[in-house]
């Protein structure tokens, strides 16, 4: 527990760094947030008045101080564009992102690890060759193309699933598959490699010599010991999925974090971008923490002190 507490404390400087960089970058980037507020036709007096009201003409340090003070109090401000509180916007989108990320990871873990483990049992066999072909394709095809292809086949061709939107479980399948595709491919390759490594080690030979069944050898001695790299990949992917996935969310009209931040960037909605980035960083840091703790679980030799 003390470890968790200390690690949590250590995330604070990271988050502060993110905040500083995001704030500075956004404020030197071209594009005027007021331009998106006034639309395609405006008069300079209105623009000047809006800039003054939003304190956009104040000195940068003053604006930064104001923003940090808000963040400390848990207030990420209001969107320039929609005038809604950022915290409320994030609260609304995050559950949708979690839903999609978990579905994708579940799919990826189940399919990827299974594919990899089974391939490793008979390297060079028919199944192995097939599985590796699948994973090559999964890694190589762009998300965008896979998503549209899935819509074409499962929604338009077979009428099994809705093309896009959000709602019941049916709406989750295609986006989760699209999002998880790369993870399935990566995981199967990494599991296979790690398994091959482990299965040729001495202790596995000993286990076989003891007369253990092949299933026990592969699952208990092989897979368990091959898990550390797998957890690393799972952790990283989960982290990136939980922070939203712009392409998948756009193709499937999924109302998650990725699209929220993309729209905010397009409109230079500074409070929304800053709040979004800060929140995503927090999620990412926490997921990494959980991953680290899982290492220790998977391999008792890894200890943090």
């Amino acid at each position: 527990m003390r470890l968790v507490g200390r690690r949590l404390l250590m995330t604070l400087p990271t988050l502060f760094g993110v905040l500083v960089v995001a704030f500075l970058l956004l404020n030197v980037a071209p594009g005027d947030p007021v331009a998106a507020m006034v639309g395609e036709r405006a008069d300079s007096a209105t623009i000047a008045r809006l800039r003054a009201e939003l304190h956009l003409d104040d000195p940068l340090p003053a604006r930064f101080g104001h923003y940090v003070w808000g963040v400390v109090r848990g207030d990420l401000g209001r969107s320039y564009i929609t005038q809604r509180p950022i915290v409320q916007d994030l609260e609304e989108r995050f559950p949708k992102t979690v839903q999609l990320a978990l579905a994708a990871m579940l799919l990826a873990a189940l399919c990827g690890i299974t594919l990899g483990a089974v391939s490793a049992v008979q390297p060079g066999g028919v199944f192995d060759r097939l599985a590796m072909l699948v994973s090559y394709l999964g890694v190589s095809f762009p998300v965008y193309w896979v998503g549209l292809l899935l819509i074409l086949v499962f929604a338009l061709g077979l009428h099994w699933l809705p093309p896009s939107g959000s709602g019941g479980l049916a709406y989750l399948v295609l986006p989760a598959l699209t999002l998880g595709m790369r993870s399935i491919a990566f995981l199967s390759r990494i599991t296979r490699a790690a398994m091959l490594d482990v299965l040729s080690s001495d202790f596995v030979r000993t286990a076989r010599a003891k007369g253990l069944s092949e299933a026990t050898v592969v699952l208990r001695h092989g897979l368990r010991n091959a898990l550390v790299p797998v957890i690393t990949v799972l952790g990283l992917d989960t982290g990136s999925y939980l922070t939203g996935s712009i392409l998948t969310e756009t193709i499937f009209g999924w109302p998650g974090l990725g699209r929220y931040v993309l729209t905010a960037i397009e409109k230079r909605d500074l409070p929304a971008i800053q709040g979004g980035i800060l929140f995503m960083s927090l999620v990412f840091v926490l997921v990494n923490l959980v991953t680290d703790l899982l290492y220790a679980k998977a391999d008792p030799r890894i200890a943090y002190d």
Partner: protein
Amino acid sequence: MRARSILLHTTLVATIACGRTAPGRAGLVYYESYDPRSLDPALSTDVPTGEMVTLAFDGLTQFDPDGRLEPALADRWTASPDGRRYVFHLRAGVKFHNGTPLTAAAVRASFLRVLAPGTRGGRPWPLYPIAGAEEYAAGRAAGVRGMTLRDDSGLAFTLTEPLAIFPKFLAMPVASVTPAPAPPELGQRPIGTGPWRFVAWQHDDALTFARNPDYWGGAPLADTLIVRIVPEPLTRAAEFEAGRLSVIEVPFGETARWRAQHPGWLAEKPALRVVYVALNNRRGPLSDTRVRRAINQAVNVPEILATVYGGRGILARGAIPPALAGSDTTRRAYGYDPAAARRLLAEAGYAGGIDVQLWRTASNVELSRAAQAIQSQLAAAGVRVELVERDASSQREAARKGQADMVILDWWADYPDADNFLYPLFYSGSFGAGGNYAFYSDAVTDSLILAARRTTDDAGRTALYRRIDDRVYAAAPWLYLWFPKDLWAHRPDLGGWDLPVIFNGQRWTHARVGGR
């Protein structure tokens, strides 16, 4: 094998769930490509917001799908002979969705709210013609002196100067009437007098509206109208083909296929839009009229329109779209003549050609491709173009500050009148953010534009519009491209829907599924 059985299982479960949750088959389903800013009329500065505000609210006037001005909350109005004073009479018996009656005081309060600095809406200009409105918006006056209540059902407006098109300004979404005092969270849960009552809004996902049975213009025929947020054009096409959207703008990539396979689905209309390349009239060689004319001659616009834009447009020989009074479709076009272009360039002292930048943004795929075609054609005439690709926001900023030589753009009408294609685009007071990205400035044009605004007689105004467009075209402040024709598809079972020429010209009251 295990992986496959899991997949199969998930798919099966999903299919069952799908049968239960497929939305909106019976009702109307429209879409927006991104979430509206808000449903507060004061914040309607973009098309999705404006369209949604139009469903829930009404203005004193409105546009029909063909862009004609109609009475709305005001059933009649009068203008003084000099065009400076207007009196609007409110329709009797109109109620807001919450049951409170519409009053002239509510109209006044709505307008004050749009102008009030704290509202931060960003679009007060449609109300600026009212005397004292600008002072009020700037915080220099306690009220708007040009806006007075006549009685409970009448409002008088005195304008700063005659403006014949003022009633059209009042049909813009920003001039919609809200209850007074404005309810809290109006932007999230709007209460208007419009044909559709607000039901729910899942951000980035969908908005749900239900028919307003008491709508003064006759209750909508359909029970519900769902507006889904579908950002990706090809996904929209799939949704439409799956029968889950009632109408859709035909994606450019599908133009030929749908024209051939589903002609019965399609509706086509010249839109009140223009696509053009703003040539910065104050930068380098482009400040020479001959160079700008040469650019107009060096580009084979019909070819680009036919190939890149799927033929979905009408060649522009001016800035006023053909559907508007004042447009001249018989004007002699510059015509494609690279040899003449070279001669003009040489005459201007650029026999060795010129180097310019053309800005484009990837978010508009078709215009981005058109920019590429323009680049290669201009090269043949000695105009060496460097393409600068930025996101829309950066491009807009550079264009507004006059930092871009050439920018490919489109302009959407806010109100169906030629003034909307002249005053913002060519009046020198509209430089930059006002819409004049070409920084075109001509004293005669300026005075003609102002004169047209003051002219109350329609025929006289139309004649002036034509003269202005003639004069500007000759000066070639733009590379004139085309007026887009909207190409939409509707489900075969959708009746009573008409493709609007302007974004707020469709209220969905006559539309219904089944029976045309």
